């Protein structure tokens, strides 16, 4: 990328630039305000919140609400805190993300490098699955889960999310592998590599950026899902989102806002971490040098 020419830089220095920064800062402030409110109120004792000033910094700092939200708060009828449900969500999201990403990569590989008659139709049909609203599949899926006999378990949620994610992950990988040089696959074929060897040794090592994109996308969607979570889980397999809802709606007399705030941040934390950790690999071009320079 070339540096902006000094001429343009001079022109935009004064007023335009001030305006741009003002707008950017305003929006940043606007988006950060709710997070600030949540953070500040999650470390205040309940009495301070009741005084009514939501924006004030805590006079008395406490991590009690966080501990409570994590391990002792009332979720439905059990005083377990969010911890077991957090673990449920992890148990659900990790295999579901891994499975849907792997299947998407395989589909993308086949749809671009092992073309067969009607492959575009298959791809179009898979794309369609991205547009099916969740609500439509609720009841048929419940029936299927019942027949398989995994209704109300974490397995049910893993299956539903993996199946639902394949459409998107296939789209991602298919478009990425479309630009992957077919000559590499042919070279590997002549070298005697099998279908899966080519996939594992040639394509996957070059798929870093798209894997990161897919993982972020899938992780966020599956972690944040509420509808499937509330529909297909029972008391022991509730995911975090549903448990958070139960935390906020169950009460033992007082509304513990500070605990609710802490719980909400806990529920949002994993997706934040995924973004922060993997975001920087987002745009890395790992393909440089595969084919002529």
């Amino acid at each position: 990328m070339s540096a902006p020419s000094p001429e343009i830089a001079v022109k935009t220095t004064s007023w335009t630039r001030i305006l741009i920064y003002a707008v950017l800062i305003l929006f940043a402030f606007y988006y950060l305000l709710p997070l600030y409110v949540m953070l500040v109120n999650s470390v205040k004792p309940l009495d301070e919140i009741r005084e009514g000033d939501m924006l004030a910094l805590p006079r008395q700092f406490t991590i009690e609400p966080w501990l409570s939200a994590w391990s002792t708060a009332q979720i439905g009828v059990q005083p377990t805190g969010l911890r077991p449900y957090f673990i449920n969500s992890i148990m659900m999201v990790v295999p579901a993300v891994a499975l849907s990403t792997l299947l998407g990569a395989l589909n993308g590989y086949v749809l671009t490098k092992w073309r067969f008659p009607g492959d575009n139709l298959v791809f179009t049909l898979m794309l369609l699955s991205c547009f099916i609203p969740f609500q439509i599949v609720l009841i048929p899926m419940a029936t299927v889960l019942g027949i398989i006999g995994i209704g109300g378990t974490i397995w049910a949620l893993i299956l539903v999310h993996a199946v639902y994610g394949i459409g998107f992950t296939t789209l991602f990988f298919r478009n990425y592998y479309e630009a992957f040089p077919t000559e590499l696959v042919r070279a590997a074929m002549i070298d005697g590599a099998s279908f899966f060897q080519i996939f594992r040794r040639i394509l996957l090592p070059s798929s870093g950026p798209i894997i990161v994109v897919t993982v972020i996308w899938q992780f966020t969607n599956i972690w944040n899902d509420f509808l499937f979570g509330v529909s297909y889980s029972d008391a022991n397999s509730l995911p975090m989102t549903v448990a958070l809802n139960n935390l906020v709606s169950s009460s033992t007399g007082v509304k513990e806002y500070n605990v609710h705030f802490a719980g909400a941040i806990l529920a949002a934390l994993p997706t934040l971490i995924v973004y922060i950790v993997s975001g920087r690999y987002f745009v890395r071009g790992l393909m440089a040098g595969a084919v002529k320079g």
Partner: protein
Amino acid sequence: MPFLEIRNLEKRFGNVEVLKGINLAIDEGGFLVLVGPSGCGKSTLLNTIAGLEAITGGEIHINGRKVNDLHPSERDIAMVFQSYALYPNMTVAQNIAFGMEIRGVPKEQRDKAVSEVSETLQIRHLLDRKPSQLSGGQRQRVAMGRALVRRPQVFLFDEPLSNLDAKLRVDMRTEIKRLHQSMKTTIVYVTHDQIEAMTLATRIAVLKDGILQQFGTPAEIYNHPANMFVADFMGSPAMNLIPANVEKSGSSLRLSMPQRSGNPLTLALPDGAQRIAKHAGGNVIFGIRPEALTDPDGADRTSSGVVTSECQIEVVEPAGSDTFAITHLGGKQVVARLRADAKVSAGKMAKLAFNLDKAVFFDPGTQQRIA
């Protein structure tokens, strides 16, 4: 028995016929170049030999073994791709050893083979680098190393030099020829560059629109092109193809070609050209290479068929080693290749020597060579 034999090969993509009944055969140690304009089917033909494309009809034999239905890895071939196709996530050494690794060759043997090949190609110092850290010429060498290490029965090259700059291309061309001379392995080589074809091949196959136009040694292709397409495609500058009338005067034949001004240019044909006698009174296409059309002092003295004539020179292009003079005959631009210091100037008349021993004649209708 030929080492590599292709019989009646046909390839269709849907309704499109890409290869229409190709027949080729080459002996062990031969260097077959497939040449033709883009879209002629030469790369498809190579891919069918490699087994990367299934064929619709015909047979392919390598060393007496029918390989039609064999997987590419079982055909005992190695291929160098146009884009080099180096695995980006592996080092040079891993790239070269990948095939052996897949075949389960033990580590020590692999290392030994890699080190031998890297010695031959002088890429030893590059072994630990990734393809992205190499220049175009280095990648080219690595790609060849990956093919060499396999010691296949047939090497397949798919336009391996077309991504290199002009100077490197000439160097690598020589190197490929040297490798071929020392290894004596059969090679099939695809290119669109007719100079590469001429310099490298022991046999050239010229293709156009999926049809084999001519198959022969470089000299045959160059001196006796089977039709006007081959004549025009091979050679640079291209052969002059001049529409001419054949006239009979007594027992001898003359060629007559209209000039832009003045009388038509006439050339008396030597006795050897009797094969076109049956075209007397009609038209032929008179084909003459630029180097057979030169200044009288530069003409081939051993040839008995040199005829000189005055021509109007329109443009003079000095090229250092030669001077090209462009004149106009039979409604076509005609290029003559003169000695560098030949005295010609644009807009003047000059004497040109036509070496009619080297001339070829085509039927204007069928475009096939008649003599």
